[in-house]
């Protein structure tokens, strides 16, 4: 039997005493990394869009947007309004959570006017005749420092009168 090199303890470095758990710990941690990748594949970290809709007598609205996004990424929110009755002054009111820590790249088609309504963004869409379909696209980018979870609220008003409201959760990963 050869004398071992300096610094080598045979029981620990040859017979691996007390090191049985090493490969299993490594496998468990690798599984954890794999789990994160699998969760990403099923969209947990963004950003496949999901649709939320609400309907009231005068109109129906559906919002298609991601429920999870990541810092720096571009994403789209699509608002589709179907007027059952004529809306004389259709207004889309977005709470500050839509905009706080986000960059709005564009709103298409441009609303007739924009205003602040009690801290929310009010986009005036103009007159919508009965049976009309109106689709509004908003393109956002998440500011890199924005993280957390928030509730997005979008309210469809006719003038000052609320028609319907949609609430969604948005998770922002760093």
């Amino acid at each position, binding site marked *: 039997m*050869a004398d071992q090199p300096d610094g080598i303890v045979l029981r620990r470095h040859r017979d691996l005493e007390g090191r049985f758990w090493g490969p299993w710990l*490594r496998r468990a941690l*690798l599984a954890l*990394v794999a789990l994160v990748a699998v969760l990403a594949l099923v969209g947990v970290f963004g950003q496949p869009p999901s649709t939320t809709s609400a309907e009231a007598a005068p109109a129906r609205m559906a919002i298609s947007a991601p429920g999870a996004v990541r810092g720096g990424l571009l994403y789209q929110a699509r608002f589709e309004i179907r007027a059952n009755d004529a809306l004389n002054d259709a207004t889309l009111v977005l709470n500050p959570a839509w905009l706080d820590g986000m960059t709005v790249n564009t709103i298409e088609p441009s609303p007739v006017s924009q205003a602040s309504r009690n801290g929310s963004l009010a986009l005036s869409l103009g007159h919508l005749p009965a049976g009309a379909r109106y689709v509004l696209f908003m393109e956002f980018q998440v500011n*890199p420092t924005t993280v957390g979870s928030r509730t997005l609220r979008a309210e469809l008003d006719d003038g000052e009168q609320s028609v319907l409201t949609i609430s969604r959760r948005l998770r922002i990963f760093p």
Partner: protein
Amino acid sequence: MDIVVRAAFAFAFVFFLTRIVGRRELSSLEPFDLIMLIVLGDLVQQGVTQSDYSVTGLVLAAGTIALLQVAVSYLNYRFRRVRQVLAGEPIVLIEDGRVLEANLARERLTRGELEEGARQSQLDSLEKVRWAVLESSGQISFIPKQ
């Protein structure tokens, strides 16, 4: 502030990855590994600095990584138990010409890779090896028989 946190997270995550992928993957730098290294560096950079092109950002990120590197080095030096976790420990692969198959399997090393390592150390047969030790760096040290 966030760039310091991101740099620290990137350092910890890359350190964590290098510890769990196994020493076999760290022991060689073949063309594919070199390309992956560059790709990984680019991915890490994007996550750390994102759209920050400032010199301040550079100083914060590079400074944070350098400080953490020194901290890890100090912990390795100061505490043996921490060194075992952070740096790993050597594993004997050959003793007196006899290949320890269980230890080889534990590190996903084949006999062929061991023979290749021996050849690179000017040893034409594993039987001429007194000790072969897989070091925590991923390199295999060969000590020939006298």
